[in-house]
Structure formats: structure tokens, C-alpha cells
């Protein structure tokens, strides 16, 4: 059998297919690595994303190992030593307004802040997909109604809706996650909808139809993988924003309940002494929020590449 390995080139672009060169031979000879490996490799090329992933892994590990890692009880303080600064004896990151060890609270806080950022986004993901796919491809009456409902929800600014819901539902971790989750639905569904509409016009959908695929199969097999990727990337970015938003809810008093060592609460608590020469109380958790939010965003950028088969070169 003839083997023809040709060189592809998109018309109009001076582009060079990376396969042509030394690597194409390797690909032919060796076994093809799994998609996971390829994805990881593509991801690995983005140094920023790798750094972000490393940061997040450290944070997750800290959260998981909080009982072991944290030197003190995060909710018990020594009021006589309250507000001592960075580098004070036995407390490398100082103490907060209740005399609690900031380092310990930071470590424990990773649990809450990560949960509040990730859980609602992940929970909404399938809902948004369903709505987006349905409204975007099937359309018709149900899709139309869905979109009108989304239009209504979309008219509420995200932050306002989250605040309203949090106020309605009351404080507490679960309620904050619920409030954030509900507010995210229209946004995530909108992204799913847009990419569904975009993907629906691609030729491969038509090809599947011409190949006898039913609507259900087109939705689940053809469109889903193409819609889920951008949505996942968006979701990662949202995770970063949600850490900040949840902190904001805590600031307004409709967020997580004290003395939970949530980073948002810690920042909010510390804000009263931020300008009183005790900046560390708010700044340390503020930086933690910043770092994690940033890491999520950069992770999203890396994920974009990792999920794109075009970037998954062997």
C-alpha cells in the first residue's frame, strides 16, 4: 500500500505544518500517545499556565492538608496579641483582629475559598450546556422560551443578582454557592448558546446530518465536545472572578459566616485596620485571592490550548 504523507497548507496563509520536519517520522514510527498526554503536552508549552497550575495544586494541597500544615487553630485566638504584624514570634504572617494566626487561617481558608469558587461553576456547567445546546441548535418553541428567560436573567447584572440572591437566601457557605450558581446560569448558558450557534453552522455538522445522524447524536456527539471546550475555558476564568465576588459578598455581610477562615472574610475583617498601620491583616488574604484568581485565569488560557486538538501535536 502506498503511503502518502503530504504537507498541508491552508490556502492563503504562510503557515508551516509542524509535522513536516523531523517530528513527522517519529509520529509514524512510535505509538500514538493518549489524548491526555497530548493535551498535557500542549498545556505544558504555556509556561504561565503551568505556573498557574502549580500554584493551584499547592493551594489545593494546602487546603487538603490544612489540619497537618496549619500551626494553630484557625478560629481560636490570643486576644492579647491581636494585630501583631508579619514576622512576630511564632506567627510568621502575624495575627488578626481576634489574635488568630493568619497563616493558619490562610491555609484553612483555601478550603472555603476554593470551594466557593469551583463548586457553583462546576455545578452550573452541565445546566448551561443543556440550555445552550438546546436553545442554540434545536431552537424551536422550547429553545425560544429558554432564550427569553435567559434574556430576562441576563438583564440583571451578575454582581447585583448575586448580591440580591445572597441577601434573600441568607449568609452561609451553601447559600453563597447557590446564589453565585444561579447568577452564573445566564452567563454560562449564553456562552454555550453562542458557541453552539457558531458550531452549528460548521460543515461537520452538516456532514453528520448528511451521514444520517439524528438530532440527539448531533447534539451529544458532534456539538458537545466542541461547545464544552470554550465553556470550560470560560468556567476557569469565572472561577477566578468568583473568588473575588464571594469575597465581596462577605464584605457586604451576606457571604460566608465568621469565624470561618474564608479569605474574603479575612480581607473584609482586615479592611478596618488596613490604613491603621495593620495592612497585613487584609493584604495577606487579599494577595491570596489575587494569586488564586490570577492562577485560574491563566489556567483558562492554558486549558484553551490543551483542549484544542489542533495544538495537540505529537
Amino acid at each position, binding site marked *: 500500500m502506498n503511503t502518502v504523507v503530504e504537507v498541508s497548507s491552508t490556502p492563503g496563509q504562510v503557515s508551516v505544518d509542524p509535522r513536516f520536519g523531523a517530528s513527522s517520522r517519529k509520529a509514524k514510527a512510535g505509538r500514538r500517545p493518549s489524548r491526555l498526554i497530548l493535551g498535557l503536552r500542549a498545556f505544558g508549552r504555556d509556561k504561565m499556565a503551568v505556573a498557574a497550575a502549580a500554584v493551584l495544586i499547592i493551594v489545593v494541597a494546602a487546603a487538603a492538608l490544612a489540619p497537618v500544615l496549619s500551626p494553630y487553630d484557625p*478560629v*481560636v*485566638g490570643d*486576644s*492579647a496579641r*491581636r*494585630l501583631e504584624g508579619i514576622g512576630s514570634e511564632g506567627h510568621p504572617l502575624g495575627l488578626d*483582629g*481576634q*489574635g488568630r494566626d493568619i497563616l493558619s487561617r490562610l491555609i484553612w481558608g483555601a478550603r472555603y475559598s476554593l470551594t466557593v469558587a469551583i463548586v457553583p461553576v462546576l455545578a452550573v456547567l452541565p445546566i448551561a450546556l443543556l440550555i445552550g445546546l438546546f436553545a442554540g441548535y434545536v431552537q424551536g418553541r422550547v429553545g425560544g422560551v429558554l432564550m427569553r428567560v435567559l434574556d430576562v436573567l441576563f438583564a440583571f447584572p451578575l454582581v447585583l443578582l448575586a448580591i440580591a440572591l445572597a*441577601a434573600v437566601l*441568607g*449568609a*452561609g457557605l451553601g447559600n453563597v454557592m447557590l446564589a453565585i450558581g444561579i447568577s452564573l446560569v445566564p452567563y454560562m448558558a449564553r456562552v454555550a448558546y453562542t458557541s453552539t450557534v457558531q458550531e452549528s453552522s460548521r460543515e461537520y455538522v452538516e456532514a453528520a446530518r448528511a451521514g444520517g445522524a439524528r438530532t440527539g447524536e448531533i447534539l451529544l456527539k458532534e456539538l458537545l465536545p466542541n461547545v464544552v471546550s470554550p465553556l470550560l475555558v470560560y468556567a476557569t476564568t469565572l472561577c477566578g472572578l468568583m473568588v473575588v465576588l464571594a469575597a465581596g459578598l462577605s464584605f*457586604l*455581610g*451576606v457571604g460566608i*459566616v*465568621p*469565624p470561618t477562615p474564608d479569605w474574603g472574610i479575612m480581607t473584609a*475583617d482586615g*479592611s*478596618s*485596620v*488596613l*490604613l*491603621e*498601620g*495593620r495592612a497585613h491583616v487584609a493584604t495577606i488574604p487579599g494577595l491570596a485571592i489575587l494569586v488564586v484568581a490570577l492562577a485560574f485565569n491563566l489556567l483558562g488560557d492554558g486549558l484553551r490550548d490543551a483542549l484544542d486538538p489542533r495544538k495537540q501535536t505529537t
Partner: protein
Amino acid sequence: MAPGLNVTGRRATLSALAGVLTAVFALSACGANSAQGDADEVLIIGIESEADVLDPQVAGGWVTWRINSQMYEPLVTHDLRTPSEEAPVPELKPGLAESWEVSEDGKEYTFNIRQGVTFHDGTDLNAEAVEYNIRRMWDEDSPQYSAAAAGQTNFVWQFVEDVTATDEYTVVVRMSQPFSPFLRMLAQGGNGSTGIISPAALEEHGEDIAEHPAGTGPFRFDDRVRGERISLVRNNDYWGEAPALDGVIFRPIPDPAGRTSALRNGEVDVIAVPSPDSVQALVDEGYQLSDGQPPHVWYLSFNMRDEYMSIPEVRQAINLAIDREGISDNLLQGTTEPAYDIQAPANDAYVERADAYGRDLDRARELLAEAGFEDGFTTSLMTSVDGSGQIVPAPMAEFIQQNLAEIGITVEIETMEWISYLGRWAEGAGDVGMMQMSWGMDTPYWLYIVTSSDMIAPSGPNVGYYSNPELDEVMDKAITAATEDEATEYWQRANEIATDDAALAPIVNDRAPYILAPGVEGWVSASQEWYDLTGVTVNPEG
């Protein structure tokens, strides 16, 4: 290999940007400069939240009454020019009533209305105006009746049978039973107050009276920009000593750090409720601290329907375990005093009970063991995260949580935003172990409001459902006592009963600190939640 912007292009962009920035700074600088050089002597007070309506009878909360009390006066007022140290209990003094007489049986009050007083809208004050106002708050059948006003001032008028203007300057109030706290209740302002409004203005503006305030006070309304400021100007026709200030502006700055910054930046002259951790620094920077002993108690109600809290030993143990000194001195940096009685020191029934409220962990553990809870238990404490007079409720609750952990009681804290919390609180404790509130009055009658079985939530503010027949009986005698001395005696007894049974857990008494710019003079912190501004002066350069 795309060629870059050439150098001239980049420079042009930069200089354009610089130009825009310069323009912004120039404009804003001229804005900042124009702050100076204002001839009028106006005092600006940074307050902790936006005020309620400027209708004294309807508005709730001290924040609003501090503003309304500059414009409106009740029949009876307090002397707020004497500092707390000199008068732990504020003296009553004639307000719009020049004098009054109480009948033998204590059921009839005759008020002699001050003559020659005019409202800010020019209407004359007379007995008819006073009756008109009282009927607005009390008489359901009068056309001016306001359900909201009646609701707010309910505790003042609850026993009133009839109100009549017997002549042009005399008003007689008749009650169904003696009510010894009546005069002090008239002077209150925490809930709705009995400040007298121009009847002509009420007739003219009806529901919108709050936008057109017309009282008799030393300051008159000038302007309100919601969220930004409420401006008052001197009432040159004031019947009493006219204020030295040309005007006073109340600026709501909800964020404590924002208030401190505004003070430091010279944007306000006085701030209320400074963050405790900023007080010492501000004093060191040359700002003045003024505080006093208003009738304020930051306290916990025990839920008497709770399996643990219904046990007196448990309540006593909790009272003994809480480190009131720690809260006051460490957490709150001396902006409060440890509370050693249910009643605040600002009333005559105050009895210091260090034995019941001083910290004694051993005794507390003993009591718990007696009740069978050596190993402790888990309960809940509900509080707000902010709110008028609440100081810093969440950190305080956390502090208490840590104290109680030391005797084995695990406390789960539930928080709510202030207004939601108020509603929730008024419904009663429900299944919450303890509920927090801060309140107090300069009349011992307050004890009745929060502990009598008549006031059990949701019909009243006894949110812990406390019911003690012995206490009820003594308080009843206090209320119907004919003389002040007799009443005081009964109130003190009631107070002791409540303490012995650990009806509530008072934690701290607020010292209500205000931080004043160096140029502010004549500010007095009396034993009350609000202030008299007539003696204040401000020197902006000071």
C-alpha cells in the same frame, strides 16, 4: 518583523496622554482647593449610615434621631450639655413643655406648653398643636393618625386614655393606670420619638412631611441629598440658646475606614463610631476623643425554649465564662466598658453585679457540671454583621465563641445583615440558642420591655421568651409606683432578680466614642445616645 511605531508617533501618543492627565489633575486640584475659604462655620459629621426619614415620630434608630433631635423637640428632653462623668444618668429638663404636674394617683399629666415658640415654617406652637401631634401617634380615629408613628411610639402612649388641650397652652394626658416611666419615655428617641411637628406642615405635606421637616429645634432643615448629605442651618428664631454654628452637615459614610480617612483628609470634622483600632492612632495624631456612658447594653438573649438555655445554671455559667474585660480592653480597645448589670449605668436602677458578670471560669465549669454538662454542648448564637449601635458584632460574637469554648460550649455563629437581622430578631429566638442585640434606655422601664412576659416575641422585644412571674410582679409595682423613689426601689429589686436568674447576658456598655478634629470645641458626650450641638464651635484651621 512588523515595523514598530516610529519614534515621533510614540512620543505624540505619550504627550497626548500626559495632556489628558494634566487636565484631569488641574481640574481636580481646583476642586480640592475650593474646599477652603468658606466663611460659614459649618460642622460636618461623618455618620455610620444613611439616615431614615426625617419624620421624628416615624423614623427608627438613633442615627436618625441624632439628626431629627437637632430639628425637633419633645415635650420633655434631656440635659445633654453635662458630660457623662458629671451626670451618669441624664437629667430630664423641660422641652416644649415649660413645666408639668402629675396627679396624686399618677394617672393624669398636665403639661404647660412653652409660649412664644414658632415652628420652622412659622406656625405657632400651642396646646392644640401638641394634641394634634399626640393624636397622630395614638388616636386611630383622628385623620392625621399614622400607623407607623403609632407603632414606633407604642411604648410611650400605651396606657393613654385621653388627650385634651384644655386651654391655649395646656395639654392634659390621662392614662388608664399609673405609668412612672412616662416622662422619660417622652424624651426617648431610639425608636420613634415624640418630637412635635408643625401641624400646618403635616396638613400640607401629609406623607411627604419627611422631605419638608418643620420642627422647633435649634437647627432647621436646609437640604438633603440622599446618600450624600443632610444639611441643617441655624434656627435664628430658636426659643432657647441659639447654636454657635451656622450649620451642621451629616454625611453618611458607611465604611469605618472611609470615615477615618475622611476625617484625616479634613473632609469631615467629627466621625461617629470610629473603628476601635483607629482610636488610639487618631488621638496620637492630635484628634480629640469624646466618649461617655450612654444607656447602651450590648447583650445576649437566652432562648428559654432551648433545652440548654432554659437551665438557669447554664445561663449563669455562660455569664461567668464571658471575658467582658477582654472584649472591652483588647478587642474594642477601650471603646466600651464591661457590662456588670443588665441595665446600663445610665439609669437609676443600675446595680453593679461583678459576682454574676465578672469572669470566673472555675465557677462556670462547676455550674455546668451541676447542670450535667461537664462535657459541654453545642448551641448557636445569632447576630448581625453591622448595624446601628452594634459596634463590631461579628468579631465580638467570635470572641464570645472562643470564651465559651473554654468551658466546653461550642457556639455556632449565624450572621445576618442588620436590617434582615432586625426582622429576624423581632420574630423571636426560634431555634437559635442566643440572640444578640444592643439597646438600652435611661429609664429602667427598658428592663420591662425586654424581659416581661407581656413582651414575649413576636408581640414584643422579649425575644428569648423569658417569663418570670416574680420579676413581672415587681416590675408591675415599679411601673405603677406613685413616687420616683418608690419606683426606683422596685426597679432595683427587679434588676437583681433578673441578674440572679441570668435572664440576659449583658456584655459591654458602649462608650459611644466620637473623634473630633482639633478645631472642634464644645462637644459634650452626655449619658445619652444622641447629642446637643448648640454649644459646639468649629475652627476649620484648628
